[in-house]
């Protein structure tokens, strides 16, 4: 991973996780899960706009907006799927407001660097990798790079 490509917000989230013991990392993931923002009204009534992340074990949907080169990321996942919600919330908090270049530059293996592999299992981490991949893909689609 090229350190320089990792946006500061995501680097801080990663460092916060790595500073904790395994068990506390799960608690922090749960905090992220609880912090996933509600969808703004213009989207809460338009579930059709959202893309389902098929690779995740529970239903999670994302939608990307790009305006003036700035990325906004929206995600929704049920409360019964706290791990998936936690992954989505990390990405929303770390990505929302970044530029297109910054988002596309995020290393694809970012989810594997959070120190969650032992606490959550590698299988489950794959869902987050898919979330990041689909987010980048939507960004590319919005700016006509696909």
């Amino acid at each position: 991973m090229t350190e320089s490509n990792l946006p500061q917000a995501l680097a801080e989230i990663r460092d916060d996780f790595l500073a904790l013991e395994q068990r506390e990392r799960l608690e922090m993931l749960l905090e992220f899960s609880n912090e996933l923002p509600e969808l703004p009204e213009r989207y809460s009534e338009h579930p059709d706009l959202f893309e389902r992340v098929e690779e995740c074990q529970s239903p999670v949907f994302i939608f990307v907006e790009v305006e003036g080169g700035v990325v906004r990321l929206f995600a929704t996942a049920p409360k019964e799927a706290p791990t998936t919600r936690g992954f989505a919330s990390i990405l929303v908090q770390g990505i929302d407001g970044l530029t297109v270049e910054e988002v596309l530059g995020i290393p694809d293996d970012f989810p594997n660097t959070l120190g969650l592999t032992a606490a959550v299992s590698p299988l489950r981490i794959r869902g987050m990798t898919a979330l990041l991949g689909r987010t980048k893909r939507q960004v590319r689609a919005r700016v006509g790079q696909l």
Partner: protein
Amino acid sequence: MTVEIDRSEKFAGYAHPERLVGGDWLEAHLGEPGLVVVESDEDVLLYETGHIPGSIKIDWHTDLNDPVQRDYIDGEAFAALLGAKGISRDSTVVIYGDKSNWWAAYALWVFTLFGHEDVRLLDGGRDKWIADGRPITTDRPSPAPVEYPVVERRDDEIRAFKEDVLAHLGRPLVDVRSPEEYSGERTTAPAYPEEGALRAGHIPTAANVPWAKAAAEDGTFRPVAELDAVYREGAGLADGEPVIAYCRIGERSSHTWFVLTHLLGFDDVKNYDGSWTEWGSAVRVPIVTGSEPGTVPSK
């Protein structure tokens, strides 16, 4: 010290009704000495969001799987895990979880590998408990550690390995995955992550009986007459014949293993936990694609 069994009418028809408890029974027995309630979920954080009061968490991946070898933990690790959770060899253990008890059934099957005698499932699992408005808490219990004896795992009675399945070809095999996975249209359950099998399809001659045929809408097990119709009449399973069940990593087939063993009373049922993630990538093993069971290759 065994806690009395749930004698509800609903369970009476099953071969081993003592393997199930209902919500009423569990709510009435919470806190009883000798009873330990265990939550085991697919989602590793679900327990933390709220669980049955007094229940402890055991995770199928981080607790029961060996971190290095693709296998379950050994007798020593199992003894350390259960002892730390306050489970004695004679505890009555009731397991419940998300997704109609897939992972709860998987945990129960692993407990059975170690010969833990009194282990039961909460019919309907986590979702039904919550839907019925029963108590949930985020308080974590701190069980006093107890001594759990080191008992070596016994893999010969209820667990099948790839070689066992090869030797078994032509005898009853149940593929409990979705029709799309069985036919080979895909290697993962719909909406599930790719778990890495090189080819798609099923083991020759396996009957496709998706696990969910055993579950009602609310996640509880179907009555015995309906289960008979699915497995005896539908899939042609007959008493006295050994059966092997498999899925993708062995969790959904644990659910079917539970149904065949404890609810229908088949006496020789094995779960092939290597399942499709092994068979679909293994060298020199035959597969069949399409929706028919297929035949055993001559060589």
